[in-house]
């Protein structure tokens, strides 16, 4: 059973109000669907679009649910599963790779005790490989919740970055 299947199919009043606000901020404009989903996700617990949220957005914007899921499943930055509190996105494109992105991945795995694509048992950290996010001047780099951490050339620097994220421990 996928985690998203366990979530209730209804939104709390607070969650619905938050989505209303996002849609109003985007001018009630259905063509802004991509931006709306990103903002809804940013405000949601677990940084993902739950099934209930997707249904709600579709109804509010007058779209078919299939249209909303076409967008959710197409774009990598929109999640349909709950995310770890800190998803460490490691750039795997050439500019970071030639600057040691694979040893950065090894360091992260060793420090957190999980591999690429995995989440720590406490659910706090996850490691993911992503394509270039335009931080090649500070390669190798990690992006976490929208913030870029660059120059992670050795294990001490990786540990220092993790420490910045709530002490880096589970």
């Amino acid at each position: 059973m996928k985690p998203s299947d366990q979530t209730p199919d209804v939104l709390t009043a607070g969650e619905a109000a938050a989505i209303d606000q996002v849609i109003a901020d985007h001018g009630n404009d259905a063509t802004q669907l991509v931006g709306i989903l990103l903002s809804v996700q940013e405000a949601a617990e677990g940084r993902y679009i739950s099934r209930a949220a997707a249904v709600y957005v579709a109804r509010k914007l007058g779209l078919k649910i299939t249209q909303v899921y076409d967008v959710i499943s197409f774009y990598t930055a929109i999640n349909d599963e709950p995310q770890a509190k800190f998803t460490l996105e490691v750039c795997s494109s050439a500019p970071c790779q030639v600057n040691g992105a694979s040893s950065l991945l090894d360091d992260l795995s060793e420090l957190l005790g999980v591999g690429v694509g995995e989440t720590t048992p406490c659910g706090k950290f996850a490691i993911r490989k992503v394509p270039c996010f335009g931080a090649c001047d500070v390669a190798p780099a990690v992006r976490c919740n929208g913030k870029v951490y660059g120059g992670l050339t050795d294990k001490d620097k990786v540990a220092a970055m993790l420490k910045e994220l709530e002490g880096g421990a589970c």
Partner: protein
Amino acid sequence: MSKAVSFISRRFGQYDPASLADYEAHDGFKALKKVLGEKIDGYDIAKVLSDNGIQGRGGAAYDMGRKWSQARDVKGGHKWVVCNADEGEPGTFKDRELLKNDPFQVLEGMIIAGWSVGANDGLIYLREEYWHLRPVILSAIKQCEEAGYLGDDILGSGLNYRIHLYSGAGAYVCGEGSALSESVEGKAGRPRGKPPYIKQCGVFHLPTCVNNVESFSLVPNVLLDDEGFYKSQGTPECPGTKMISVSGNVKNPGVFEIPFGTTIREIIELAGGVADGHEVRLVQLGGASGCIASKDQLDTPYTYDDLKKAGLTAVGSGAVLVVDDRTSVVDFLRMTQAFFCHESCGQCTPCREGNRHIALTLDKLAEGTCTRAELDSAIRYARLMTDASICGLGQAAQSAFLSALKHFPADFELKKEAAVK
């Protein structure tokens, strides 16, 4: 030695990008006031762009003046101007710097575009990776609206023009005009078949003029350049300056504005030279979809024509990725290939299957188990992708592989036992 210049980057660090008043104090909106005050015709503005030899900075290098006059030609009441800020080519981050350090300059260029081509709406399509730049852009738009640079009857000229901000969501393919249009319409970003072209049928199926962040940034500067500084830079065939992003194994990676005609070697020196005393193995120009140059080609001048003559396609996105001798050519290609396998939207067969097939062949090459027949098929698929893919992604995805075959033949010599199989 330093060959860096500052033309469109001249305001970097000189003013507070959160303040319109500060921008105005640094010649901001002077070009717009000139255009609207003198009611300069859109065709004349397009001519200035063409006379300065400006080619679009997004990668396709289309004559910008020509694009604008074609956009003006298009009949139809409602047109759109699109600023493509979806710079997804690995190794490219110059638009990030332009938006961060001088967002008003981009807006000014877009407003002049609206006037020139006869559009009433403009939009910025910002990649999700630059989500952190949203507040600065939204604030710049708001300040322009309050000051009357956006909205109805701008500066009493009769021009009604608004700018909207749209988000991408981590899809490289959305940098392509028709995929971008789909995305702006609130859909998945799958490229459309062409024709009709974007200029006739773009966002919301309306006539659309798409330019890159850097292209728009050039406009106000060129219009105020009475002394002809821009044209005095570069070479006679390729005048002007270019924003480049230098990354990889160099000491000081970053964004530089250089005159065209600077050699690749000088660009590497500008970025502090190769790091840790290593030798250059290869240089990739224009991002993952760009060609790769060997160390024997470093004295090639950085101009559209010279690069093309050297078999390096073109300037592309302005990325210059320097790779030293610690990475082999085949391993480098595997990194690029992994990127395209991830980013192919999967809509058309040549791109979807071709990328995967070539990735497997490159893996075998690295292992030393690739046969002649397998390599030949990969080359055939690469050429097929170039000819038969729906959009620029698939068409350009194999530039690195095909140029590597030409410039690094020794790296594709097959291991003996595999070759006889």
